[in-house]
């Protein structure tokens, strides 16, 4: 038989496998194109003395096909294409193993039987790959975590490609049969795998960091929206008060014109004095938070303070100066402040008159952040607070302040003071080098 014609059958199986495990549904056209391309790439194989280069060509073709067609799932294409190649080879080996088991030799058997066997193999091959492909596609559809990130896919591709190259060419390494050659080959193999593993873990690490960062951003954005909504509500309240105010003035002038002192007094005491209450209560001075220019911190603080205010805590916020930056990582600072504020709110709830105060001051060379709260009867022993596992609350793990300590520790420019005096507990952070 013509050596080129004998390629048709194995590469048909090859193309079928790839088609079945492909991340997207591949139509007949796509399959035809793939088959044609693979055949074209495989064409020189019988001509070459060194088959590996031909097979390598086929691999590259599959990769390129994955890159060019079905562009929206490029990295997955390459990965699954390479996987398909390996899968096809493995299945082929399994089938030839089976043939060997039944001592069936196609070159000596009856042509009819050979064709039957070939058709059976194609059908079995098709069914197995189809099932595998379906399972894989289902797995890909609800992919989670790192698999969402393209770079990870590319790295998996690189690892697979490396694996295949090593697999194909290990006999090509000079003197691979000798002991020295084997050592050389092994070293090459391990070095390659090591590199891939390092890159893989590095990229996973980066991807994870990016993900947490976007998550914090998202949360900050959410908080900021709450803050804006709160400001709007405050503004609405103010507007309705203005409206009332004009009405009150009008009725006041009415009484004055009539000279009706008694009614004027009644009106004043009944209607106007209570408005004093309106002005002082209900607003928790969120506007001062506007002086903080670090968005994530501002939104975190506003969310926590609004929450505290809603819990019925008397909230005081003082940020008299404009604060453009904090000389530490924003995510770290947000975590610390979150811990402090949560603690403050929970501790204040136990006090007879719950109060939480937040003060941020810009000094010439430091920024001071102070969070204080009123204390109930429970008298926490200061030195126990920072110990891991210590808690004043039931059902809490007591890891908050221990975590805060871990976060603050590496910063040389931060002074952290924890103090308790006269029913008031204060956390103070003094960050040096705020202005750059």
């Amino acid at each position, binding site marked *: 038989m013509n050596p080129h014609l004998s390629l048709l059958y194995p590469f048909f199986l090859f193309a079928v496998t790839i088609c079945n495990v492909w991340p997207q549904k591949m139509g007949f056209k796509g399959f035809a194109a793939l088959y044609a391309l693979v055949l074209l790439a495989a064409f020189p194989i019988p001509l070459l003395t060194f088959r590996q280069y031909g097979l390598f060509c086929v691999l590259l073709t599959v990769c390129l096909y994955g890159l060019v067609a079905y562009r929206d799932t490029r990295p997955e294409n390459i990965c699954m294409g390479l996987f398909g190649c390996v899968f096809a080879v493995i299945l082929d080996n399994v089938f030839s193993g089976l043939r060997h088991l039944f001592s069936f030799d196609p070159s000596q058997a009856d042509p009819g039987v050979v064709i039957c066997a070939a058709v059976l193999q194609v059908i079995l091959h098709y069914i197995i790959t189809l099932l595998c492909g379906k399972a894989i596609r289902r797995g890909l559809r609800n992919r989670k975590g790192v698999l969402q990130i393209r770079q990870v896919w590319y790295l998996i591709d690189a690892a697979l490609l490396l694996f295949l190259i090593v697999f194909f060419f290990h006999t090509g390494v000079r003197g691979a049969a000798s002991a020295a050659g084997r050592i050389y080959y092994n070293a090459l193999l391990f070095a390659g795998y090591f590199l891939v593993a390092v890159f893989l873990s590095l990229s996973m690490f980066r991807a994870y960091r990016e993900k947490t960062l976007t998550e914090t951003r998202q949360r900050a954005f959410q908080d900021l929206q709450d803050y804006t909504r709160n400001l709007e509500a405050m503004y609405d309240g103010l507007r309705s008060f203005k409206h009332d105010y004009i009405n009150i003035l009008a009725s006041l002038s009415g009484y004055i014109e009539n000279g009706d002192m008694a009614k004027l007094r009644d009106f004043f005491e009944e209607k106007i004095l209570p408005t004093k209450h309106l002005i002082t209560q209900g607003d928790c001075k969120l506007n001062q938070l506007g002086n903080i220019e670090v968005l994530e911190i501002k939104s975190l603080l506003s969310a926590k303070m609004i929450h505290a205010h809603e819990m019925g805590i008397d909230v005081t916020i*003082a940020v008299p100066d404009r604060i453009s930056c904090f000389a530490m990582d924003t995510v770290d600072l947000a975590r610390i402040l979150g811990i402090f504020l949560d603690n403050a709110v929970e501790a204040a709830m136990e006090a007879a008159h719950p109060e939480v105060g937040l*003060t941020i001051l810009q000094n010439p060379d430091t920024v001071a952040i102070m969070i204080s709260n009123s204390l109930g009867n429970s008298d926490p022993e200061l030195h126990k607070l920072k110990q891991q596992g210590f808690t004043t609350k039931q059902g809490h793990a007591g890891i908050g302040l221990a975590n805060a300590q871990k976060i603050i*520790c590496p910063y*040389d420019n931060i002074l952290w003071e924890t103090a308790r005096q006269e029913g008031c507990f204060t956390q103070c952070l003094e960050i*040096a080098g705020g202005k750059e």
Partner: protein
Amino acid sequence: MLHIYVCEDDAAQREAVVQIIHNTVLMEELDMQLALDTADPHELLEAVRNSRVTGIYFLDIDLKCDMNGMQLARQIRKFDPRCFIIFITAHSELSYMTFQYQVEAMDFVLKDNPAEAKVKIRECLLHAWERHTLQTNKVCKTYTIRIGERKISVDYQDILFFETSGNIHKVVLHAKDRQIEFSGMMKDLENTLDDSFVRCHRSFLVNRNNIKEVDTKTRTICFVNGETCLMSTRMMKGI
């Protein structure tokens, strides 16, 4: 002897405050006298500059002048570092913590409730007197931590011990009701502090005066507030 100064731009309110002060000083028989009440902060500063006596200052925040109460307080601190500053304020816009932090104000009096203000002013005077007598009777050594331009002073008698932190450039000060983690080195501390402080362990520098008991068996030191630290056999002798 303490001098009392009042700076408030509203004459009626100033009069009210002065009246309360007078009554309190008379009734409690305090060794104080009203030195000056004025609406003009410059006049007050001039008086402070010429005085040698420690003062108690009642200052309004909003003085309708080129200087506000906070700035005035800073100036006063320069001339009279041990003074007692109390703010009289209607707006709680600047919280108490700001006052305390920036000029170490002793307290503040809200003026929108006259009855409460009266009680508060009396408390302030008594408190100032108590602190003044304490200060003059004992010469108290303090340890000062600096960060930027800010200084935090802690009395030696309040310090229990210093502990190394996870970061080699940082030290944790344990005081009676206070813990401060700041950047510093144990070695420098040992040199600056006096000999009531003893290095009892590689990571602890303790104040001998605040030790309650020493357990040589478990090699721990227990302090007056129940806090404990370790000591090493080699460095045990110092205690």
